[in-house]
């Protein structure tokens, strides 16, 4: 079995889309997880539910919602086009955004758990040592939550690699731009290219395996750092 340049292109698009999705999700998920785990405020449960919605919503529905919101004639789409010069539909940023939305709850959950597991007394000690709330967040809470940040990022990355429904609705299937592994795989099945479909399926499996193995290795290193 030999892989074709087209297979490689799909792999490359997938990696780009997933990496971009993680980068989009990370700051937002950190902020949201910090609020959900550490603060009590009105509307907290509602926020929690809304942010977790993509986990249970069919991805195609999430994608359709994005398409409606981000279309060039919708307010958000116009803003992105005029302000950033970005087209958010049928483009790489659009595919990344679709993957980011679907992967967001997974990252959020890992981070909330990570923040909730922190010993609040360590933050209190830091305060008595002269650290303000921001310094405590950056020098104590974030480093201690690092394994959770890593786990959440990998989970989101893996989910974004496998994302199909929302991506195909928002970004379509443009070769080299938005045609990710799963989108290309579906296309080849439709075309009856069984050998190609098999290659892409194997490629997906290898990629998933590598991501999980890398995650396990990195987490072990982090834990060893903390527990001597």
């Amino acid at each position, binding site marked *: 079995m030999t892989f074709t340049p087209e297979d490689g292109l799909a792999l490359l698009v997938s990696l780009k889309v997933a990496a971009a999705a993680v980068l989009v999700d990370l700051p937002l998920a950190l902020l949201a997880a910090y609020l959900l785990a550490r603060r009590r405020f009105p509307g907290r449960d509602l926020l929690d539910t809304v942010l977790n919605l993509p986990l249970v919503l069919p991805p195609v529905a999430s994608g359709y919602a994005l398409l409606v919101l981000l279309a060039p004639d919708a307010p958000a789409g116009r803003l992105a086009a005029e302000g950033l010069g970005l087209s958010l539909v049928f483009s790489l940023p659009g595919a990344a955004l679709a993957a980011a939305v679907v992967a967001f709850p997974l990252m959020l959950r890992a981070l909330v758990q990570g923040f909730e597991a922190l010993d609040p*007394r*360590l933050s*209190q*000690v830091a305060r*008595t*040592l*002269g650290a303000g709330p921001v310094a405590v967040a950056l020098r104590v809470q974030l480093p201690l939550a*690092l394994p959770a940040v890593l786990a959440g990022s990998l989970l989101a990355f893996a989910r974004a690699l496998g994302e199909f429904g929302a991506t195909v609705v928002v970004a379509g299937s443009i070769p080299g731009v938005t045609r990710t592994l799963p989108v290309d795989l579906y296309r080849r099945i439709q075309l009856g290219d069984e050998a190609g479909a098999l290659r892409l399926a194997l490629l997906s499996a290898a990629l998933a395996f590598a991501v999980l193995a890398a995650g396990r290795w990195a987490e072990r290193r982090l834990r060893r750092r903390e*527990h*001597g």
Partner: protein
Amino acid sequence: MIRARIRRRKGAFTLDLELEAPPGVTAVCGPSGSGKTTLLNVLLGLEPLDAGEVRWNGQVLEQRPGGIRTPPEGRRFGAVFQEGLLFPHLTVEGNVRFALPRRPSPEQEGRAADWMRRLGLEPLRRRRPATLSGGERQRVAIARAMAAAPRALFLDEPLNGLDARLKLETLLALRRVRRDLEGPVLYVTHQPAEVLAVADRVIRLAGGQVAWQGEPARILSEARGPGSDEPSNFLEATVERRLGAGQVEMAWGEHRLHVQLEEAAPGERHTLVIRPSDVILGVGEPGRVSARNRLRLTVRSMVPAGERVWVRLEAPDPFLALITAEAARDLALAPGREVTALVKSLAPGTAGR
């Protein structure tokens, strides 16, 4: 000096007291649930007041009603908690240096390094907290708190969970801190032995209120209860001259002590640790005895503790002997009476300097 009027409700419990902590060590003791830890948290600014105020040298740190509230990082009160609470992601040195500002001055750098050295942490500087013993962790926590140059120091049962040897080692470290801190120290404990070792005065809490306050010796009657450690005498003595055979003569006030100490140079200060039950009391000249150390001392007061009696002696440092009630009657011991205290062998406590 800390002055506080505190009212703080927590469910059915209410902490309601007035407190004054002048320079020196104030021990806060009382049964669990009496409000000791809540008191520390309120003074540190980690828990809000419901009513009252906290002042530092007359300056208001917190007031309710009134709405003033200085956050913990603005109070410059240091704290050492149970189990040390070290940052697990930082090394020993990283923990101590956490107390320094982002760009420390040479003086601040020096202070952190100095505390690391004085508490014997230099060999451990690259280690992670998970690899340290309980006593080592507490020493790191103390060095970390002191590196921030606190105006006052709060200790919440810092010896909990340590074995007897580590307790002694950590107590000696705390006594060294006490010598250098000009501000008040609040020391929460339920161990009379610790009160006697470090405190200048005691506040006893019960049910969220002050039951009594006074000198540490008032705790003596509780010092032999079940589960309480035996107190030790801590003698701060200076090496005078070497006697050979690993013995040195040390000055303790006007007294001279023979101490087992290898490689000691004249002028060195050491803390000698003697258990009160290892002190023998006699009246008159005891004749020829094998004990090398005979100290002529005056009985200050006596505190009965069941079958035994604590005898407090006038001495350069607080000095206790624990003898049976029968012996005390035979010797007709009473305050003002002169006695000879015999101490068989003296050796410095560990981690001394």
